[in-house]
């Protein structure tokens, strides 16, 4: 089992794919195992985070469990 990261918008290009399986654990540890340039993008001030479809106010406290989906949402550009 694993957790899944989902990259929306331009973050998909930064990550090289729309999603990626990662080993579960605290978010800080998950990010530390990624390419540092990507981690910096994901931690951008304007990037929101959703855990299993719900927006997270305090990403620092997120711990990913097996089967969790964590989405990184850059500023929107719709309509």
């Amino acid at each position, binding site marked *: 089992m694993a957790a899944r990261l*989902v990259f*929306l*918008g*331009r973050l998909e*290009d930064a990550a090289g794919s729309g999603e990626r399986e990662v080993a579960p654990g605290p978010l800080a540890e998950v990010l530390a195992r990624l390419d540092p340039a990507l981690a910096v993008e994901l931690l951008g001030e304007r990037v929101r985070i*959703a855990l*299993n*479809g*719900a*927006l997270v106010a305090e990403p620092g406290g997120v711990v990913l469990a097996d089967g969790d*989906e964590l*989405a990184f*949402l*850059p*500023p*929107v*550009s*719709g*309509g």
Partner: protein
Amino acid sequence: MRDVRLLETAFDPALEIERFTAGHPQSGGVVSFLGQVREGGGVEALELRHYAPLTLPGMRQLADSVLGRWALDGLLIVHRVGTMAPRDPIVLVAAAARHRRDAFAAADFAMDHLKSESWFWKREKTADGWRWIEPREEDRRDLARW
């Protein structure tokens, strides 16, 4: 009353407005806004992405807040995702009300919030390839009107 849809394939705005209007015979006014893919600038295609767990639920919440704010008989929000060509319809908002001012304001509010708060990401294709569209400052200013 509330009809909110996210579509993967093309829709016919005229047909949608006709059905919506026919469904609200008691309304004195129906205001609609149609957004389409702009032609020109070398744009060959436009793609809208969404995030299923958030996008449609967020559009439904937006519709509820519009209905709570103005006295409407009905509200229609139809939004495309996927790849579109120039002149393809992207978004249709229609508000039906007893009085036209409520319908104008409701459609305006809904569009401003769809543009700057809903969970969509847009990229366009030109001869140089695909490029993500960054949010526009005007869209955030438009939101501050409310």
